[in-house]
């Protein structure tokens, strides 16, 4: 049975705020050609999202320090700024001015390239994170698939830095990281596939639109509870967060593939892992928690207040609410991840691989099949 998916997808969503259109129109009003206006526009959202990612990391690092302190009944950072909010900046500054050491017997080129290969795919993946109907860098058709394929590049960087350090702990850490990331990629992709099947599209914007029909009740988490859990576990494993931080298990491997790194190169690993954590939380909120959607649809609220959805003021408010909701949902998940880190023990490598291959993989396959069956039986509820 072959259905034409393009006709099945609903196109009844309000366009919302389109900053690119207004910006390029304003520049064209100044007498520039459309091409030049587009060229001037291009770097702006990229720079904005890069800054947002870095600020997100700083906030996450501060949260990690404060929450870990609370979990251990300490105070945590308190001198750098009010409540220690400037502590992550101080950390970053320290790493920036630290001596950059390359071990004498290490392979200098690969040693330098490794952290870059770990960081770049993670930053590129921010391309597809939507903060609103038009508030993302690029609504590429392959959307969420782009993130899955980009995140599969990371293990190469880890293997590279593990190998180039010329240290047995580094090599073991790199191999473990690659093994872990390969094993958890498959259940992750399968649980994403179930969501994609329900929304008939790989694009992150379409996935969110499909969830925002009836506010909180139509979020994917109710239709995909198992997929949500699988995705969250696999995302934690991909980010190498406790309880899955085996590649850098301090007691066994010193710091895994990061052992020989210092200064800015170490900071790149650090940055990469935190950007990845924030990105994973954002994607969980996009895939399962309605993305930028408010628990009660903004269209309904506007209707009750007697306002048109297309009115400029309402559009600006809708866009702001969307950004706040996306970030709020993501940070609740980040908080959960931090709490998990400071309250759960680490699993052993055999338990990790058993969980991935013998439990999560069959479970996610079953989840995919059941979703397909439900989609055929209840096409209205499961996005037929």
């Amino acid at each position, binding site marked *: 049975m072959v259905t034409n*998916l*393009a006709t099945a997808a609903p196109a009844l969503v309000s366009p919302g705020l389109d900053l690119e259109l207004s910006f390029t129109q304003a520049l064209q009003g100044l007498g520039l050609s459309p091409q030049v206006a587009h060229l001037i526009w291009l770097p702006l959202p990229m720079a904005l999202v890069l800054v947002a990612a870095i600020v997100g990391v700083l906030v996450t690092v501060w949260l990690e320090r404060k929450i870990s302190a609370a979990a251990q009944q300490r105070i945590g950072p308190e001198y750098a700024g009010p409540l220690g909010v400037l502590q992550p900046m101080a950390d970053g500054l320290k790493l920036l001015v630290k001596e950059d050491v390359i071990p004498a017997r290490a392979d200098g080129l690969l040693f330098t390239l490794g952290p870059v290969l770990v960081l770049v795919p993670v930053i590129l993946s921010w391309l597809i994170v939507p903060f609103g109907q038009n508030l993302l860098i690029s609504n590429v058709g*392959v959307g969420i698939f*782009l993130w899955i394929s980009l995140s*599969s590049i990371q293990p190469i960087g880890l293997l590279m830095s593990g*190998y180039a350090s010329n240290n047995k702990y580094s090599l073991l850490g790199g191999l473990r990281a*690659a093994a872990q990331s390969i094993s958890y990629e498959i259940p992750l992709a399968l649980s994403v596939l179930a969501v994609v099947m329900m929304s008939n599209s790989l694009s992150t914007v379409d996935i969110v639109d499909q969830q925002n029909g009836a506010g909180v009740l139509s979020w994917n988490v109710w239709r995909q509870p198992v997929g949500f859990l699988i995705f969250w576990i696999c995302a934690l494993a991909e980010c190498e967060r406790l309880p899955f931080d085996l590649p850098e298990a301090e007691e066994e491997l010193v710091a895994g593939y990061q052992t020989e790194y210092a200064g800015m190169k170490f900071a790149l690993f650090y940055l990469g892992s935190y950007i990845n954590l924030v990105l994973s939380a954002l994607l969980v909120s996009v895939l399962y928690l309605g993305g930028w959607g408010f628990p009660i649809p903004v269209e309904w609220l506007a209707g009750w207040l007697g306002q048109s959805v297309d009115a400029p003021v309402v559009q600006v408010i809708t866009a702001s609410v969307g950004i706040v909701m996306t970030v709020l949902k993501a940070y609740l998940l980040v908080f959960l991840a931090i709490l998990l880190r400071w309250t759960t023990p680490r699993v052993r490598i055999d338990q990790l691989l058993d969980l991935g291959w013998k439990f999560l993989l069959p479970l996610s396959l079953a989840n995919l099949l059941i979703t397909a069956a439900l989609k055929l039986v209840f096409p209205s509820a499961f996005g037929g």
Partner: protein
Amino acid sequence: MTIANSTELICFVVLAAVVVLGSLGVVLLSNIVYSAFLLGGVFMAVAGLYLLLNASFVAAAQVLVYVGAVNVLILFAIMLVNKREDLKPVEGLQLRRLLSGGVCAGLLILLVRVVVSTPWAVPGPAAIGEGATERIGEHLFTDYLLPFELASVLLLMAMIGAIVLARRDVLEADVGTGDAVDQGLIEKPSTPLLVDQSTR
């Protein structure tokens, strides 16, 4: 020439140079780890060429399958068996190199001749872009169903073969040498499946 066109041309030249030089590096470098990493770079550049052809799904699949799976497994295999041993010099190495170089050059001449003599339709058929994902899916489940299923059976066979080769405890004799396997030396979580239990 518009900005978009010149950007496309520059991207194509850079990617093509990376593919050609990277492949030469994969073949000619003596350090096998460098070769493996360069292979990953070549795969990425090929994915970039697909992107230039407006085939974003194929590009993402290329990255996922070739860089994320094939290349990582190659690296894994190299690093797990990275024994530092001095290899015996091969006799007549220069002659062998000349011969293989000659074969490769012949193949290159043949391919160049095919490229030059074929009447290519310029410009080619228009790319369907974002619709490609659905089109590929339709083909895989209709007219390409049999090759698709055969490929999956082939992968299954390869996987079973790899498991049998890796888990020596399920076999009575070594696959390579034919010597009997000392079952006492191998740590087993459960009783082996294929070993005859009545003889012990």
